[in-house]
């Protein structure tokens, strides 16, 4: 029996999937698509593995393989190692790249024009004062007269320098303390985790080792995860990494993830997937910055309430059930060893505080990057148009917030021609009078799909030129040959296959358009309900800050044209990009921002849209381009003559 088992295992092949670095073992002859499923990776197919849709394209980097030819894949790509996962059998140990899951095109907001102009004016503080510090000490050698214990002598020295009330020490530090203090003639580096006047020694090393102090700031989104690796001695961002949240294979939005977690073992699996995602990113970032993982002592994580529950392996079901109460709003500091995150074993993890089940730490963190809390007269609106859309309105005196289930459409997920803002994504697209498109692709490659900003442009252009009606349905008479049949119904040809990366026609389907309209309607109607609740009209808003995964640029005019954002003077809008990530970075840099984030969280009044009787009405009103009530969009009415 044992013999037989081990033989089977011997015959199995190892398949390694990049960029996730996930390895699975499968019996010979298994299709790569099944191997992907075994690995719980988010590769999708439309045709269900028949080899016709071409969605499951992968690239084999190493190892021999056998693949059936398919009309959905050009010979040129096939010769470069590309292949359809469903048509490929595992015959060797192989390494496979999943090319759809490239790094996101994230530039830190720190370098953005907005942040450069506003950084002294934001609600958080931009300073370097992290809660883990590295202190260089010179301990005088013990003598018969000065025979205090090693630890006591460290405490004595620290108290002298830092005026601390209480000093604790981790067991792991004690274990190596005696040798460490003697190794380098008492020249040691102490790593302290500080909380007010209390401190805990979390690591000690001889100065000669040259140990550094690094931290990571992470945005754990429902669809995408991004992080900065930061030098906590000079606030420099050393590397940035991002990928899809691997949990996406278990459901695209938070509700389906919560449902997924309801069977035994599944919650643990979701936790493992997000830890795996984060660890791969940490590995990638530290490799590129040549940083030792054991030098990462602090992590600041922001994410919506569900994502943080799943990260911490906490039961998420009560988020979904009335009266929608989460396990926590403010998470105590967590130890990295409890989560298995790739950083120093004694590393500290801090999660931004949430307001409630549907307004999470990504929002409190995001608000830190805006000037909203600096002014007590002007009213600002903050919109985070992620998979779970959140909105905040107010100023220094008051803040109201609500959340809506917008869906991942503008992050490029759930849309046939959509993709995250990574290499190969169309980020800007314009229609010429000839009906041809002119577009700009991230990194200038052949296009693979459209990211959020491109999708906003596309919808606006199709609407402006009359190729879709106000309900988002194609005007077939006008579009003529550009209307093509797809497996998912009618589609509109954006670019011919010969000009596209995958060699397949780039098509937006009527379903995609409905999906985008539903998403924009969810955001806009939440906006209306929120403002009506505080008795303000859109005209009373002085500035609008927009966060979300649209990409680097967002054409504000087009977001208004499709009715995603209210029709206000264009100069009132500021597009921030990933504000959750920047907020996490600010919190990582300075302990003060933790307190500010807590203050913000407590100040916010949360409105539950589920119980708001007017929401459904506002939503159906917004399911139109730009809106059923055109009076709300005077500039669009005028330009398009509606």
């Amino acid at each position, binding site marked *: 029996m044992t013999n037989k088992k081990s033989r089977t295992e011997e015959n199995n092949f190892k398949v390694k999937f990049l960029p996730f670095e996930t390895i699975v073992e499968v019996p010979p002859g298994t299709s790569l698509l099944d191997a992907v499923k075994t690995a719980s990776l988010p590769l999708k197919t439309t045709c269900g593995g028949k080899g016709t849709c071409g969605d499951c394209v992968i690239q084999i980097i190493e190892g021999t393989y056998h693949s059936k030819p398919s009309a959905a894949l050009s010979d040129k790509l096939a010769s470069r190692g590309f292949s359809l996962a469903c048509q490929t059998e595992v015959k060797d140990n192989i390494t496979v790249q999943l090319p759809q899951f490239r790094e996101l095109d994230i530039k830190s907001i720190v370098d953005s024009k907005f942040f450069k102009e506003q950084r002294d004016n934001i609600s958080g503080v931009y300073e370097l004062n992290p809660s883990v510090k590295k202190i260089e000490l010179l301990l005088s050698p013990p003598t018969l007269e000065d025979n205090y214990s090693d630890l006591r002598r460290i405490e004595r020295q620290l108290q002298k320098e830092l005026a601390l009330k209480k000093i604790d020490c981790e067991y792991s530090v004690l274990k190596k303390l005696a040798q460490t203090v003697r190794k380098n003639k008492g020249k040691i580096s102490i790593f302290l985790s500080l909380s007010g006047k209390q401190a805990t020694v979390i690591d000690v090393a001889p100065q000669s080792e040259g140990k550094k102090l690094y931290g990571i700031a992470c945005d754990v989104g429902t669809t995408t995860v991004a992080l900065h690796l930061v030098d906590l001695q000079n606030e420099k961002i050393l590397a940035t990494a991002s990928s899809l949240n691997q949990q996406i294979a278990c459901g695209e939005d938070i509700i389906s993830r919560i449902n997924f977690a309801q069977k035994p073992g599944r919650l643990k699996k979701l936790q493992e997937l997000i830890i795996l995602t984060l660890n791969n990113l940490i590995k990638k970032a530290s490799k590129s910055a040549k940083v030792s993982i054991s030098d990462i002592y602090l992590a600041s994580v922001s994410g919506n309430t569900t994502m943080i529950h799943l990260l911490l392996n906490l039961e998420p079901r009560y988020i979904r059930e009335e009266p929608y109460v989460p396990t926590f709003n403010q998470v105590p500091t967590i130890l990295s060893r409890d989560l298995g995150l790739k950083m120093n074993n004694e590393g500290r993890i801090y999660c931004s505080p949430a307001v409630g089940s549907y307004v999470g730490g990504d929002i409190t963190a995001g608000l830190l990057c805006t000037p909203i809390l600096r002014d007590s007269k002007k009213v600002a609106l903050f919109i985070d148009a992620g998979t779970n859309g959140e909105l905040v309105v107010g100023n220094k005196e008051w803040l109201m917030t609500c959340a809506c289930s917008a869906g991942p459409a503008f992050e490029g997920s759930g849309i046939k021609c959509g993709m995250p803002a990574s290499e190969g994504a169309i980020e800007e697209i314009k229609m010429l009078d000839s009906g041809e498109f002119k577009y700009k692709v991230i990194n200038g490659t052949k296009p693979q799909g459209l990211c959020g900003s491109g999708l906003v442009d596309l919808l606006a252009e199709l609407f402006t030129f009359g190729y879709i*009606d*106000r*309900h988002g349905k194609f005007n077939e008479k006008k579009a003529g040959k550009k209307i093509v049949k797809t497996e998912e119904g009618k589609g509109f040809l954006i670019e011919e296959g010969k000009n596209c990366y995958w060699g397949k026609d780039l098509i937006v389907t009527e379903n995609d358009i409905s999906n985008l309209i539903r998403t924009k309607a969810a955001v806009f109607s939440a906006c209306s309900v929120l403002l009506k609740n505080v008795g303000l009209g859109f005209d009373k808003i002085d500035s609008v800050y927009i966060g979300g995964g649209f990409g680097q640029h967002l054409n504000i005019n087009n977001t208004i044209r499709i009715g995603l954002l209210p029709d206000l003077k264009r100069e009132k809008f500021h597009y921030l990009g990933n504000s959750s990530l920047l907020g996490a970075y600010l919190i990582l840099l300075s302990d003060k921002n933790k307190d500010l984030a807590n203050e913000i969280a407590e100040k916010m009044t949360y409105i539950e849209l589920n119980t708001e009787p007017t929401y459904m*009405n506002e939503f*159906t*009103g917004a*399911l*139109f381009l730009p809106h*059923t009530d055109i009076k709300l969009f005077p500039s669009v009415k005028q330009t398009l003559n509606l």
Partner: protein
Amino acid sequence: MNFEIPKEVNTGKVAEVTIGATSEQGGTRSHTVTIGGSTSLPFHFFEGQHPHRPAVAMEVFDKTPKKYLDSLMDYFGDVIDKPGEMAKKCVDEYGAELISVRLEGTHPEKGDKSAEEAAETVQQVLESVRVPLIISGHSHFEKINKVMKKVCEVTEGENCLINYVETDNYKTIAAACIAYKHTLVAQSPIDVNLAKQLNILLTDMNFPPERIVMDPLTSTLGYGLEYTYSIMERIRNDGLAGDKMLAFPMLINPGYESFRVKETWAPEKEYPDWGNLEQRAAYWEIATAMSLLLTGTELLIMYHPRAFEVVKNKIIEMYESKKES
């Protein structure tokens, strides 16, 4: 003491829609029926103009409905499978002001009759009565588009009320209505915004607004009538407040809706508490129709001859009181 009734002044007006065409107008009807035109809430004669009273239609079928009520068979049993004769009976004996021809039998799962057969049925009815016609379809998009196109074509100039189009399937039928000069029902599922959106889509394709009737897809007593009532009320209020895209006359189907629910067919033997079945069936339809009349109905398609009579007489009575006041 003199009491002055406070009056609501509205800026909007419900569109006036005419159904049918006489020989001078290119059709063969003896007269036309015009509905709409109100400038205040229904029956608020003291507040505004109400030039046309709501019209009441009866319905005939291209195929005997599976669950046609025994209580109706007493009235129509001899003609139920002869739409022409049944239409004649509805008009001559009961006083139907319009006839609706329901083409359910063309549904692929309910008989799959061809477009030509449907056109024949409609022509039969056209020949047997002189009142304007309503042509009522179903929700199988592909088939009904074929059927309505054909029916529109063979009834060119008659200005029938083509019932209905919805947001996901409006272009083909609306285009046929424009081409062959018919009036159209825009149906939307109990929602003010969705109703308005469809009307915008229709007018965006240059459909003449004076030829649109709205069906807000109402239910019957006991099945969410209050909700449909409030939606119709909001549609009418918005219309009267000046929103032209909601200021269209409204059609309801108290017959079709009432005769689908248990209360109108469950036998007295099983439910002695519910009382006499025939009375109950008629009352159910009356209660539905009368309630929705109060919230802005201009056109009703009814089934039960006794219910029809009560509702029509009540409307006439109320409009006569207008003259007196």
